[in-house]
């Protein structure tokens, strides 16, 4: 093994050595590692009476914002809600399917659904599809065993946590949680902290934006605060109205009637069948 001398990068400009290497690898069939921005900030935390879930409302299609006010907090059961990051169709379909299964389960057992039931149904489905169902979820709810908060990754692994964030804005939101979270938060403190975390994602991450949605779940009750905070309001028209000072002058008016292209032949032969 020859000892290689550490080469100093050439002064000024960009070194294209690795680009050549990447090209060579691509020709040999080795594709570069891909990363996918999930374009969302979703969070959840456990407070003294239950669980609070929060999400931003921006849906992106590459560099374009395709929905400025979408709903990322999905209904699973009367006492369980789920925030979804990743491919919107995947999160919608998977939460819808599991919500349906939970409803049937409730009919058969006659009992309130448990959060771990939803968790297991989701992770089994995601694992079966080996990560191709691109849904990263924050699942939270309150059942007979108490409040629960879980994160589910697209490949099917799960975490159980007192506070959690997912999506491209998760680091920004987690920074807020890590510094300000404490056990036994009251409802208002919890909502304030979740709003702060989502706002941190909205303002510092390109993939997240628009408004803040909050869902508070406690024993026997739930509150879905849609657009709890709207830090990016859109003004549509000026209240004074618009007036354009200079109008285009009319110099000449000439009207030319167009000839009818279709000739109507009366009493022609019927079409052959």
């Amino acid at each position, binding site marked *: 093994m020859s000892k290689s001398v550490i080469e100093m990068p050439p002064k000024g400009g960009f070194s294209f050595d690795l680009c050549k290497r990447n090209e060579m690898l691509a020709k040999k069939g080795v594709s570069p590692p891909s990363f996918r921005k999930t374009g969302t900030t979703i969070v959840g935390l456990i407070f003294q009476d239950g669980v609070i879930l929060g999400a931003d409302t921006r849906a992106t299609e590459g560099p374009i914002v395709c929905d400025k006010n979408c709903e990322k907090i999905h209904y699973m059961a009367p006492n369980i809600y789920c925030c979804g990051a990743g491919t919107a169709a995947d999160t919608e379909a998977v939460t*819808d*399917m599991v919500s*349906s299964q939970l*409803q*049937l389960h409730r*009919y*058969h057992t006659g009992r309130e659904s448990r959060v771990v039931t939803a968790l297991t149904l989701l992770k089994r489905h995601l694992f079966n599809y080996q990560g191709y169902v691109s849904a990263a979820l924050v699942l939270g709810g309150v059942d007979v065993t108490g409040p629960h908060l879980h994160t589910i990754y697209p490949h099917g692994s799960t975490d159980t946590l007192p506070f959690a964030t997912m999506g491209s804005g998760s680091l920004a939101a987690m920074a807020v949680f890590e510094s300000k979270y404490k056990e036994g938060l009251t409802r208002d403190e919890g909502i304030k902290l979740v709003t702060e975390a989502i706002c941190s994602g909205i303002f510092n991450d390109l993939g997240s934006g628009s408004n803040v949605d909050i869902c508070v779940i406690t024993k026997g009750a739930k509150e879905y605060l849609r657009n709890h905070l709207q830090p990016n309001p859109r003004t549509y028209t000026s209240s004074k109205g618009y007036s354009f000072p200079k109008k285009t002058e009319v110099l000449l008016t000439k009207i030319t009637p167009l000839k009818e292209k279709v000739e109507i032949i009366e009493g022609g032969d019927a079409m052959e069948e």
Partner: protein
Amino acid sequence: MLSLLPKDFEFFITMGDSQYSFSLTTFSPSGKLVQIEHALTAVGSGQTSLGIKAANGVVIATEKKLPSILVDETSVQKIQCLTPNIGVVYSGMGPDFRVLVRKSRKQAEQYHRLYKEPIPVTQLVRETAAVMQEFTQSGGVRPFGVSLLIAGYDDNGPQLYQVDPSGSYFSWKASAMGKNVSNAKTFLEKRYTDDMELDDAVHTAILTLKEGFEGQISGKNIEIGIIGTDKKFRVLTPSEVDDYLAEVE
């Protein structure tokens, strides 16, 4: 003396496998399906159940005679909910009823997932009836030994349907099934009015059940399910049933 060649044995084996590959409901020379007739007899010897459609709701009720006083009556629930606004009661074989309830619930849920609207009562009745008909035309199965009374409230108002083991269904203003069916139907014909309120319908249902009831009627040995303009189907608790019984006295 027949000398059987190996190929003959093969024939017999395949014959044996296909013994049940034809349906048990094959037409009789008189044009009837005998198994379905027998299924209806099974229904006819089941406990009485009835349903009444009022102007502002539907009520379904059934006897809940348990085989012994040692049976825990709270564990038995004959009236079941299929969707939040549709309920069902039966006469006939309990286990067959459970299977149908399970299938119907799944179909209602699938409809909801596809169309994102609660399933209309007629649709659910049609799909349940289709399942019951399947079992009269498939190999190796027998028809269901239950008749169902499906009660629901949707955009078309209150509705009551009866589904038979053959898979035929009828919409009724009031109907009864099971042991005491003829007396019960006569009683209902006399008592039924088109502008009945839900409470009157419950009273009428109780009186009809009382007609053929052996022994002391109470909240513990009958079951009543109602659905009103709130479109929420629920089974009355034994104490609520006792209250209605007291009103009837």
